[in-house]
């Protein structure tokens, strides 16, 4: 993410979370946090404990984030934020927490006759292959909770639709037949299958690198009867460095009622 992208992200993030933007100048942004946001990101539990225990007047913080320090001419007091900074990662995390579960309805035209909306479960998966190197894949699946039909790139297909959080008056939502938790299991299996069928030469190579390094290490201590502690440490380091792992993480998901 470039500084401009980070800036845009902050605007959107705080607006969406009802934090009033007090100042916004292309390269920095000042926001009034809500009580909830203060608790989430300001890391001051004792203050909030105190306010709540004493029934005091809560005073959530005002924060200035500088998104592009190099392009600020005046002297601004604020926190520099950039891609890779702990603060931005924290905001990403909060975004993830606050955008994890949705229920959305497709908006239908009032002029048409009453529409029936079909329930779908949509889930976004991130799959990571990790050794001393990494590769990540993103899968977005939707499963029709009436028929069991599965479609790929579900999230992209939603982007073109007009979705609202409250069902339109002229629409009618069909109760699902396949239970969402069963549907989720089905999608999990599909992800597993994709992983199973993928080429895992990367893991073989990582194992090869691991064993080669392990052999080199053994060579160093060849003939040493009582191996010193640093031998074990080094061995552990090699495991952490190379041991291939696959991680599956659900980014978010929800129920979607679509025409």
């Amino acid at each position, binding site marked *: 993410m470039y500084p401009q992208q980070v800036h845009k992200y902050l605007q959107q993030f705080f607006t969406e979370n009802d934090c009033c933007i007090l100042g916004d100048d292309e390269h920095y942004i000042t926001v009034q946090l809500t009580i909830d946001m203060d608790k989430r990101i300001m890391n001051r539990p004792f203050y909030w404990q105190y306010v709540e225990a004493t029934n005091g007047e809560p005073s959530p913080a005002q924060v200035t984030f500088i998104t592009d320090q190099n392009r600020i001419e005046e002297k601004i007091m604020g926190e520099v934020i950039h891609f890779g900074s702990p603060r931005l990662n924290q905001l990403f995390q909060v975004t993830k927490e606050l955008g994890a579960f949705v229920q959305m309805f497709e908006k239908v035209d009032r002029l048409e006759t009453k529409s029936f909306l079909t329930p779908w479960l949509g889930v976004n998966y991130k799959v990571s292959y990790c050794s001393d*190197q990494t590769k990540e894949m993103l899968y977005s699946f939707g499963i029709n909770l009436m028929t069991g039909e599965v479609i790929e790139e579900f999230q992209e297909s939603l982007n073109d639709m007009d979705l609202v959080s409250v069902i339109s008056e002229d629409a009618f939502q069909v109760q699902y037949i396949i239970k969402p938790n069963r549907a989720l299991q089905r999608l999990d299996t599909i992800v597993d299958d994709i992983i199973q069928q993928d080429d895992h030469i990367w893991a073989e190579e990582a194992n090869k690198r691991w064993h080669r390094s392990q052999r080199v290490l053994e060579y*160093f201590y060849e003939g040493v009867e009582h191996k010193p502690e640093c031998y074990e440490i080094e061995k552990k380091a090699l495991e952490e460095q190379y041991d291939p792992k696959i991680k599956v993480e659900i980014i978010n998901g929800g129920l979607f009622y679509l025409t």
Partner: protein
Amino acid sequence: MIIERSSEWEEGFINRLENPEKWDSWTLYKMSYEIVKTNLITEFSGLQSAKYLPNLTPLTHQLEAAKTVIERMNGKAILADEVGLGKTIEAGLVLKEYLIRGLVKKALILAPASLVNQWVEELNQKFHIPAIPYKKNYPIDRYDIIVMSMDTAKKSPHRELIYAQNFDIFIIDEAHKLKNHKTQIYEFVQSLKKKFCLLLTATPIQNDVFELFYLISLLKPGHLGNYETFQSAFSASKHDLEHDDYLRALVNQVMVRNRREDTGIEWTNRRVQTIPIQFTKEEREVYDLLVELKNVSSVFSGSFALITLQKEMCSSKEATCLTLTKMREDCVAPDEVEYVDRIIEKLMALEINSKAEKVLEIIAQANDKVIIFTEYRATQIYLQWYLHVKGITSVLFNGKFNKNKRDYMKRLFKEQAQVLIATEAGGEGINLQFCHHVINYDLPWNPMKLEQRIGRVHRLGQEHDVHIYNLAIENTIENNILELLNTKIGVFEKVVGDLDDILTNYKKTI
């Protein structure tokens, strides 16, 4: 293969279905997806970091080095570029890449105390890596990226605090300080769990090939075999390497070394001259008397003491006198004391310093800014006085200066003084591209020290040819030093690779 998955989302979702509450915002949902999508690492190979660094345009050789370290060396490497090619940038690129890829969360950078702040600045400004300088009583577990001085790190309680953390990467600057495996710092680094590790040094060999053996054994124990096998294969004599090519190939598997001429950047030339100097008759007399000392008193029979005196005599009477007076206190017999006193008397009567006169000549000829490196504080002060008398302005510099004082001295030199006189410790971490004459007033035993000195001036950003003057007094110990320097350079070149010119004509002699 085991697939790790968390049931966290599933539980949360089912909970929502059973206990209806407000659903999340669609905008945040889409933002969350977009973040993951934008930041997705779609390839095992290639550098992601470069595109996230708007304040930095890395040079081709720096990007290549970072790529090699990650893809071919699996994140354990010696970065051994010649001085001034940007090893810090390469290390920063590697660190950034691992941070982006999520392979590193916690990092520890060990550097000489004088360079700690420079590291913090560069990581923050150029790489957007939130590094902090370590201070005593800092809660070490609360910070992810820490820069610490080597001297602090190796001592209690910091040492134990570091062991208790789970650092994913260690970056060790000026790693030639780890050449001796018997030191505390070596042991300390050996016992660290090094998942990823970068050792930065322009001079992986300073004196002999075992230094490289220990450095590599720290990084990848066994890569060069164990000590016995290494010794039997590579050191019939310390300087005679039989399996050059084989050893070089092994070394190249763990070491990246860019040379100036490989960088594709137009480098200015180094013009190296060895300037022979003749002692005056009086200086020669004192020098010979000093050499005789070993036959006069047991105080001087140790070769080290005598060599020091000889070297100092080649530098200045001030340096010599200081040591000699100290040693005189150890003399017991009256005739010994008398002999020493006679030397001191003759020494102090000397009116001409031939070397200093030569320096004056060089400065006059250069008619430009000049850096003089000496090994001795006494000589440093003498030279300043001598130049002052001759109407030449100079500033002193030594490595013990803190950052503010360094910057101040550098500015004085740049803006006001013609000459900077530095002692050995002044060699590291200061950049003086605006100057292009270097006088090595005394020669160190170690060629890499010369390289470090020259590197202050001959680095990225230098626009002129750089003139280097190595001063050596004829028929003194400085001849031997020159010879030894040649041999050591030979060892380095056989194992590590060619060196840029440090001495004159050494290639012919090897």
